[in-house]
């Protein structure tokens, strides 16, 4: 994999990090989520795209 061009992949990583950060901000500001908060923190930090999607669609009780 030595010919991987990180310039191409960096925006993808940046977007994933942005998504996780927005999720964490939302998690910090909301009081009620489905399930324990620490689980969502783990999912947002380590769950990549699917973890973030799961948080935004299933994690939050409707505002």
């Amino acid at each position, binding site marked *: 994999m030595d010919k991987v061009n990180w310039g*191409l992949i960096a*925006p*993808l990583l940046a977007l994933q990090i942005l998504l996780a950060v*927005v999720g964490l901000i939302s998690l910090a500001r909301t009081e009620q989520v489905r399930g324990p908060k620490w689980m969502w923190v783990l999912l947002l930090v380590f769950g990549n*795209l699917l973890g*973030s999607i799961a948080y935004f669609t299933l994690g939050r009780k409707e*505002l």
Partner: protein
Amino acid sequence: MSKLWTLYYREMLEAVRSYKLIWIPVVFIILGIMQPLVTFYMADILAASSNVPAGFMDSYEMPGAAAVMAQALGQYGTIGILILVLGTMNSLAGERSSGTAELLMARPVSPVSIVVAKWAANFTVLIIALVLGVAGAAYYTVQLMGGLAWGAVAAASGLYALWLLCAVSLTLLFSAWLRGPAAAGFALLLAAGMSLAHSLLPSRTAWLPAALPGMSASVLAEGRVTGGPMISAALLIVACIAGASLLVRRNKLPN
């Protein structure tokens, strides 16, 4: 008209507060740029997974730019539709369960304007997400695979937007009737059912809105466009808005 505008503004504010206006477009951009990237590095990815039989890679051919673009749009037909439906499912149901609906209904606003404002807000989120996602996908495709016919990309995206809007409108209709998750389930079931019917009997169901994704892909391959699915999709969307308005009216408090 100014009432409708106020309601729409309220919905957009809600979309910002619930982070919907951020996370849905970001997910769409990620999905869009992932497709050309994964396709471009497919040979490396397969080689790194090590259990590929020798000589297998010789037959691998990089798909053309138009094909990759069609695959990227296809992502919006699966994960994208799921995200949009899950993001829309509570727009009417959530207000019913939280009591906001009663508050809103006590004011002199018509059910139609409530539904139209919600529909327009969800449409706005969809368009922003799709435009940014397609732009990302097209940029990476052009960088990695080669040129695209921009007119075809725009037409294909428009057709896909119409199909996604059908799913969103169905969700809104069911959301006026059922609780959020059930509404999402029914809308997805109907969309999947239409897609299945179209894939089993393509010639007889060529007029269904479910023909739109296929037509979108064929536009990229310089295929033809027929008006049938577009008309039926428009009718379906209008019917969903009308139906949702009737359901909202039925829940209206007596004066």
